């Protein structure tokens, strides 16, 4: 197993989940709840892929294939944890936006506010 590649996959898929979750919040903020739901679904899919990468790394470790733990692996785990937390929070944010701004009432389309 190519450990560097598996670790990078964990980082990229976790980051993808985080990116999609953030975009979903922006969509909900702009009143586009269909898009927000779609992005949350993409984020869930990316997170599943990240979990698969993580599982393969843990299995490799259990099989004694990992000779040394690297900072990059710890960093990848950091990304995964961050993605899980942001995805959970994004779902709550979208639910809140739905309450204060019912679907179709407003579509500003703006997503660059910071």
């Amino acid at each position, binding site marked *: 197993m190519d450990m*560097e*590649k598996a670790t*990078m*996959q964990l*980082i*990229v*898929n*976790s*980051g*993808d989940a*985080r*990116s*999609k979750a*953030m*975009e979903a919040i*922006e969509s909900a903020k702009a009143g586009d709840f269909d898009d927000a739901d779609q992005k949350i679904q993409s984020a869930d899919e990316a997170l599943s892929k990240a979990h698969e990468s993580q599982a393969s790394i843990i299995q490799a470790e259990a099989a004694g294939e990992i000779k040394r733990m690297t*900072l*990059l692996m710890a*960093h*990848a785990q950091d*990304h995964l944890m*961050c993605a899980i937390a942001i995805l959970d929070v994004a779902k709550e944010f979208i639910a809140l936006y739905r309450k204060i701004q019912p679907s179709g009432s407003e579509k500003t389309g703006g*997503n*660059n506010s*910071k």
Partner: protein
Amino acid sequence: MIRITLVCAAGVSTSLLVSKMNIAASQMNIDAIIKATAENNFGKYADHTDVLMLGPQVSYLLADAKSRYEHLGIHVTVISKEDYTSLNGEKVLKDALALAK
């Protein structure tokens, strides 16, 4: 000479890709300054960047980065997941060069 800055959440994984890109640049005989930094630190590099490349894990920053930096003449793009995962320095460097043309 081309100045490329890669940005990700903390600048950790991009620094790996930067080292591969530097190897590719010297093999291809290209004069390039390639750096990696954290997303919240890019402002310091904006004056010294021709191409800003975002890691796929921070792709949600694309619209914001474009609106902030494109008018300064900086090309902004997102590195593909495939190239990022495989740390394909040569491909990413070529993408940057194509963008700056």
